[in-house]
């Protein structure tokens, strides 16, 4: 705790009280990584403000001593977004978890940033509303984290990602200043500053409150499970469905490795012998749903689907979604460790990228499963490894990198919803020119002129070697 002098500690204690400060090494140990466990680094101090005022006072105190910080919500991120890098202080929003106001008439809700994603929907579902972005970690991840990563989820194909659902933000800038961006109204003029903060991964300050859009629950659903002999035929069906003009609420694919893991874990009746399955959910007005579902089933069959099953009731539908949303964890039953990639390709390139992935799997001798948002071309190859086997961590990282490179070559992107974090920062120059990165840095400096807010994330430092992860980090590989 060399960077934190006693006067600063006294000041922080005066702001937060002793209960909201964690400074002993044993306790800080559990904060050394999030869902990206490849790299680890403990903060020197963890601060847990309960209100915007406390958070702002903490940020001002750190600013006066030029101490950098890293924000953290529930720590479910998958790209190391809250890994402390040259940031002694960690500011956690988990105690800021109040739902401030629900405004059904205007279909919006104001929440503190530490509110858990699913708790928003739970609070409004009795009245027939929901909050649309639904990442697989929604039982635990916070709205603040969702905003930082611009999170998605299965239903973003139809409903859009987090940025499409944030109307206004209260942000504390790195010097402690509290600013309001956007607002409760649907249409705004001027620059889209909310858009600049959403997806900035905490490099523009810390979001303390958000006004979110509420959606009306669709009148009904049809949820189909289609089994295919191989991933090729399944991806053809995806393209056919989208091209037909039918827009499903969600269109998800799982390959055989994942299907088997999920079936072993949850016994939902997935076909273990299928090469791939699609979960296709149609939602909207009851009128026309059956016709759409029939059309989708016919298209799936024309692409070679061996079976198309319709979830008979809400319980069956819930079970399918439970299986899909917990697929990542179920993979934990197959191997001690995994790394999840998050590349995006144009939908039509899905068959090609899946061939690349299986080739990468052979080349690095690592099993790779695929569970992903097929409808929007957002891949989640899950690379299985065992950190106890020498060299496997390195191979897993290299394999992930090869997949991302292929995504970019096909005209895709590095991340659909997990963020760049530290995981993919080395690949940013593959996607962006030095000019692009310079402009991004300038934008970031408008919010954070001294570069103290989540340093070392998103934008690679000029001059850093881009082929490997940032060299100053202690990478346990």
């Amino acid at each position: 705790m060399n960077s934190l002098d006693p006067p600063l500690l006294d000041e922080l204690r005066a702001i937060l009280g002793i209960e909201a400060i964690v400074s002993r090494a044993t306790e800080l140990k559990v904060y050394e990584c999030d869902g990206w466990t490849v790299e680890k680094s403990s903060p020197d101090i963890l601060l847990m403000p309960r209100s915007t005022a406390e958070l702002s006072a903490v940020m001002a105190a750190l600013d006066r001593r030029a101490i950098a910080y890293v924000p953290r919500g529930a720590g479910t991120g998958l790209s190391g977004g809250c890994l402390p890098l040259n940031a002694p202080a960690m500011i956690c929003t988990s105690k800021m978890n109040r739902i401030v106001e629900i405004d059904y008439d205007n279909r919006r809700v104001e929440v503190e940033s530490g509110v858990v994603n699913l708790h928003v929907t739970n609070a409004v579902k009795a009245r027939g509303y929901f909050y649309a972005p639904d990442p697989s970690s929604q039982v635990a991840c916070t709205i603040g984290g969702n905003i930082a990563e611009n999170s998605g989820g299965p239903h973003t194909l139809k409903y859009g990602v987090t940025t499409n659902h944030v109307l206004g933000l209260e942000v504390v800038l790195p010097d402690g200043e509290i600013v309001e961006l956007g607002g409760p109204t649907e249409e705004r003029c001027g620059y889209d500053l909310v858009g600049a903060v959403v997806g900035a991964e905490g490099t523009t300050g810390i979001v303390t409150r958000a006004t979110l859009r509420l959606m009306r629950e669709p009148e009904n659903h049809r949820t189909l499970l289609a089994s295919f002999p191989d991933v090729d035929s399944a991806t053809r069906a995806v393209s056919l469905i989208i091209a037909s003009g039918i827009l499903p609420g969600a269109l998800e694919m799982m390959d055989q490795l994942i299907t088997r893991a999920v079936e072993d874990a949850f016994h939902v009746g997935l076909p273990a012998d299928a090469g791939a399955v699609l979960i296709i959910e149609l939602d909207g007005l009851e009128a026309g749903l059956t016709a759409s579902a029939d059309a989708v089933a016919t298209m799936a069959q024309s692409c070679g689907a061996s079976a198309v099953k319709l979830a008979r009731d809400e319980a069956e539908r819930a079970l399918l979604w439970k299986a899909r949303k917990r697929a990542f964890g179920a993979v934990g039953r197959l191997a001690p460790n995994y790394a999840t990639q998050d590349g995006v390709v144009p939908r039509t390139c899905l068959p090609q990228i899946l061939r690349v992935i299986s080739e990468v799997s052979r080349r690095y001798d690592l099993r790779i499963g695929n569970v992903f948002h097929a409808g929007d071309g957002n891949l989640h190859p899950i690379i299985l490894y065992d950190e106890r086997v020498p060299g496997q961590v390195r191979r897993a990282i290299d394999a992930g990198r090869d997949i991302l490179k292929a995504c970019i070559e096909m005209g895709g992107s590095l991340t659909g919803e997990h963020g760049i974090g530290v995981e993919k920062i080395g690949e940013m120059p593959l996607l962006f020119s030095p000019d692009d990165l310079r402009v991004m840095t300038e934008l970031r400096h408008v919010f954070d002129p001294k570069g103290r807010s989540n340093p070392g994330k998103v934008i690679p430092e000029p001059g850093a070697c881009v082929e490997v992860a940032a060299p100053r980090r202690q990478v346990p590989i």
Partner: protein
Amino acid sequence: MDEAPITQSMPVQDVCDYDLLFDCVHCGLCVEACPTYIATRREMDSPRGRIYLMKSLAEGKLQLDDDSVRHLDLCLGCRGCETACPSGVHYGQLIEGARAFVERNYRRRFFDRFRRSAVSAVFPYPLRMRALLAPLVIVDRLGLRPALRTILPRALRDWIDLLPRLAGARPLAPEAHAAPAADAPRVVVHHGCVAQVLANSENLNSERLLAAAGYRVVHLENTACCGALDLHSGNAARALDFARANVSALKRSGADAILSAASGCSVAIAEYGQLLKNEPAIADDARAVASKVKDLSSLLLAAGWTAPREFRCTVTYHDACHLAHGLGVREAPRRLLASIPGVKIIEMVESDLCCGSAGSYNLTEPEMARELGRRKTDNIVATGADYVVLANPGCEFQIAAELRRRKSKTTAIHLADFLALASNGDVR
């Protein structure tokens, strides 16, 4: 880039089953299912955080110190995280291992040591428990408990507040039931240790209900504590002794189904197979006994139990942790309650969040237990129900104490007692 040397994680300390730690992929989906995380919002008080502490201890990256013990102690062992976990982490086994490790390697402060030895020396032995409570029975008979409270130190007062009124609560002998059909399945109700002293009506009502539903109720000759208290407090050796004694007794009973009015005991028995797997002499019997564990509501539903009369009231159902997260029983008790004419069920929020009782947890961790007890009763009171029905005596004491404190009109009652009340108008 300077390649750091390849780090190979090897266990250097025998904290728990090291390989089981690798089931956890650090996704964090468990944290909001953990009552202590919900209360403190700090990750060292979450399942993922505790697993990380165990792993760091096992790998020698952390030393066992006051902080690590503190956060391991604060776990309720409710297993809410096992329900939430997509990776199938055996958290219960991990925390039991870690607790035994703590007891082997850490010297507690005097008061804590005293508190824990008192629980350990008295609770598993009904005779000792009765002897210790004898003076309080007299106090209660004279109606002097309020006076007694005022002169006791706070720690003792908190313990006594958890006890139901003891006057008139004399040990009830097992009773004979009408002869069942010759081929009726044999059922044993394991009477437990604390339960047979403080809540024997739950055992006897369970037996009456099962007998009336056509089961052949078999009594155990001697009932040892199931060992759960010891497993949860790191005393593995005695837990194994208790488990062996129970396995032989339960095997001799020839039971087709085994249950306990305490869901924690049911789960402990259901895990005997795992617990005794390394003892060849008894491993097969332990597995066989474990596989026979059932719960009251499922047995009654299977036998087609119906309420003999109408009983008009509102009820909210609290999921005892080990019943819901351990045995996975959630629907059966609700279906049973809903089948009683006149009973209206009002669901509370967070019905499967631990009430803070957690075995002897409310005696060793009173602050957290009180906080969770208050949260639970907030949710109960919000339903406005006449009864909160639950299937575990520990939850009943904890919730009843909290309801008494806030002078609520809601009554906490065990499922077996409630069914007796609904059927006969009387718990006894």
